[in-house]
């Protein structure tokens, strides 16, 4: 999978590149808008990561001119700015996504996956999710583990569904807050952890193999192996 990374800070560029390559992306790197345009014309990319603060041009105007040039791949916007520009919101409406610095690598990868999935819906949405002996019926909103029905609140079901969809991949607290509660907040209390503990108490019963793992300081992962 070919990816175009437009980022001017050399250090972040290197970090992202190694993280992305580790995740299996083939990465082209551009340090400014001019180079980015050349690379975008030279070969087709399936996804773009664009930093807003480029030395020669504003990131958004780069995205808009790339769109005019016929580049239709989804864009993940990186921003070190505090306020979210209205134009960024516009792009977000148009199917792109944005992430503020600093971010967790896991979150960046998850958002890339989401963007790619959004662009290639692929085969129809599954109605059942299965991880090990954990099974989720998305239509009836029911979860069973080893044949035993789990007593989940609707909110817990949504949380478990999100973890299952990302089984084997790490999700951060802010990703959970964003996707499950629809809030981009940074609480300085452990609200998400408490939800996970509760869910874990219901999903990982006594004598069962624990599925929900905490990666301290980073996030959570639902084991798929």
């Amino acid at each position, binding site marked *: 999978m070919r990816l175009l990374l437009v980022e001017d*800070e050399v*250090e*972040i560029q290197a*970090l*992202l590149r*190694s*993280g992305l390559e580790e995740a299996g992306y083939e990465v082209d790197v551009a340090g400014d808008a001019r180079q980015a345009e050349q690379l975008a014309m030279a070969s087709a990319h399936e996804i773009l990561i664009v930093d807003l*603060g480029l030395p020669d041009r504003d990131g958004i105007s780069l995205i808009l001119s790339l769109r005019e040039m016929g580049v239709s791949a989804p864009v993940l916007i990186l921003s*070190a*700015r*505090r*306020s*979210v520009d*209205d*134009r960024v*919101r*516009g792009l*977000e*409406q148009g199917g792109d996504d944005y992430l*503020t*610095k*600093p*971010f*967790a*690598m896991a979150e960046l990868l998850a958002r890339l996956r*989401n963007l790619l999935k959004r662009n290639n819906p692929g085969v129809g949405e599954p109605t059942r999710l299965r991880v090990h002996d954990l099974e989720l019926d998305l239509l009836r909103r029911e979860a069973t583990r080893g044949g035993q029905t789990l007593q989940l609140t609707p*909110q817990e079901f*949504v949380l478990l*569904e*999100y973890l299952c*969809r*990302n089984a084997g991949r790490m999700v951060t607290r802010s990703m959970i*807050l*964003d*996707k*499950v*509660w*629809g*809030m*981009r*907040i*940074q*609480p*300085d*209390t*452990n*609200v998400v952890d*408490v*939800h996970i*503990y*509760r869910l874990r108490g219901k999903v990982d019963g006594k004598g069962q193999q624990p599925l929900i793992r905490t990666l*301290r*300081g*980073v996030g959570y992962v639902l084991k798929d192996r």
Partner: protein
Amino acid sequence: MSSKTAKPVMHSAAWRISLWATLAFACGTMVVFAFLHRFVSNDIQQRTDAWLAGEVEVLGDVAEHTPKDALYDRVVSEVAELASEEVPNRLRSEGRANDLVFFLQTDTKGAQALWVGTGSGAPYLDAIRRQPFPPDEPQHLRVAGSDVPFRVVAARIDDGSVIYLGLSERDELRVLRNLRLRFITWWLLLVMLGFVIVFYTTRRMLSHVRDITEAASRIGHSDLNKRVPTSARNDEVAHLARTLNRMLDRIENSMHQLHTITDALAHDLRSPLTAIRGKLEMSLSAATHGEQAEPIVAVIDELDRLTEFLNTSLDVAEGKADALRLSKSEIDLDELLRGMADLYEPSMSEKNLRVALKSSGPLAMRADAGLVHRMISNLFDNELKHLPAGCSVHMRLEAEQDQARLSVEDDGPGFAPEILPHLFERRVKGRQSSGHGLGLAFVEAVARAHGGSVTASNREEGGARLILTLPRGLAQEPAATKDLAMLPVSASRA
């Protein structure tokens, strides 16, 4: 002109100005007329007196030189009648002149000797006797039975008798009455016309001022790109508008400077933070042992807290300067609050705290979704961190006409009295607090940026009370930022 506060016209400045101007005009013209009236009436009286003096002289001559025989009465009466034909100020339409003029001659004893006039001479004689009559000085005379006074002049003849010639003031009074009537009519018309003209011109002029006021009041917090309307004319109002706009230019410029500084600061700190975090993550994935991972994880936590502190700190700084940038969209505060309560409920019950949420139903408002989310989450964080176990929190959300009111009450220890007055300042926190002391300052900054307010107090029954009011802002701000800022609140649930 779509004035939202449609005050009755009587309370407008235009009304007051035109009322006073009209009053001054009316009084002025009235005084001028009073002088004019006096002048005219004096003039008429002088002419009357001149006629009387002339006629009485003629009559006196005739009376003196006519022999007192049988023809005397006739001769004198003829002359008197003749004189009455030439009455001054006489109205043409009036046919009979007889009742306008009388002639009376008294003998030496003062009894009536000759009477020429309408009716009996007795009441006239009575009236004449009642007041002194120096010769050749016309006097006013009120006669019983006649409603208009006479102007009378007396002349003494050598034979000792006195003749009196009287002229009714009826025509004079009528002339003056006509004058007054016409004046009053014209005066009323002019005063009314003047009032209308003054009222409309001042209203037009003041409507420019009102437009400026309305435009200025629409230029809200941190929304400084609008300007008040200016006109091409070069009067005081246009000058006011231009001065206001220049002031706004300067404010916008300083605001822009502030934004540049805070943005640069944020940007310059975030980029290295991103690099540090990335490196930490890499070493975390390389660390195999728990002991190695532990400190890295702690540093990442600290780093995230530092980032959040940086964000909030800059937001609060901008908020204090009324420079917080908002990107508004329509949100449902009720739904948001329920979602937030749902998010915090497990943590609360873990600490044995209860949360009760009362709401009057969906509450749509226009606000910056991201900031309001963080603000509400700060309120919850605040309760979660400071309340001792076993307490409960009551939240009540009410929709008032054009504002939303959220009260948060708890039965905990309340705010320490020494920090209560400084609660919304930066870095103020209770002694046991572990936070960075920006929580409530941030709540205040966001409320302020939206044109709302937040107040804190201790309840009499014990415990703290926070009251947050936010304008709903639904009516105004039509299409300005709508097309881009329609961020759905409940984002897709993956």
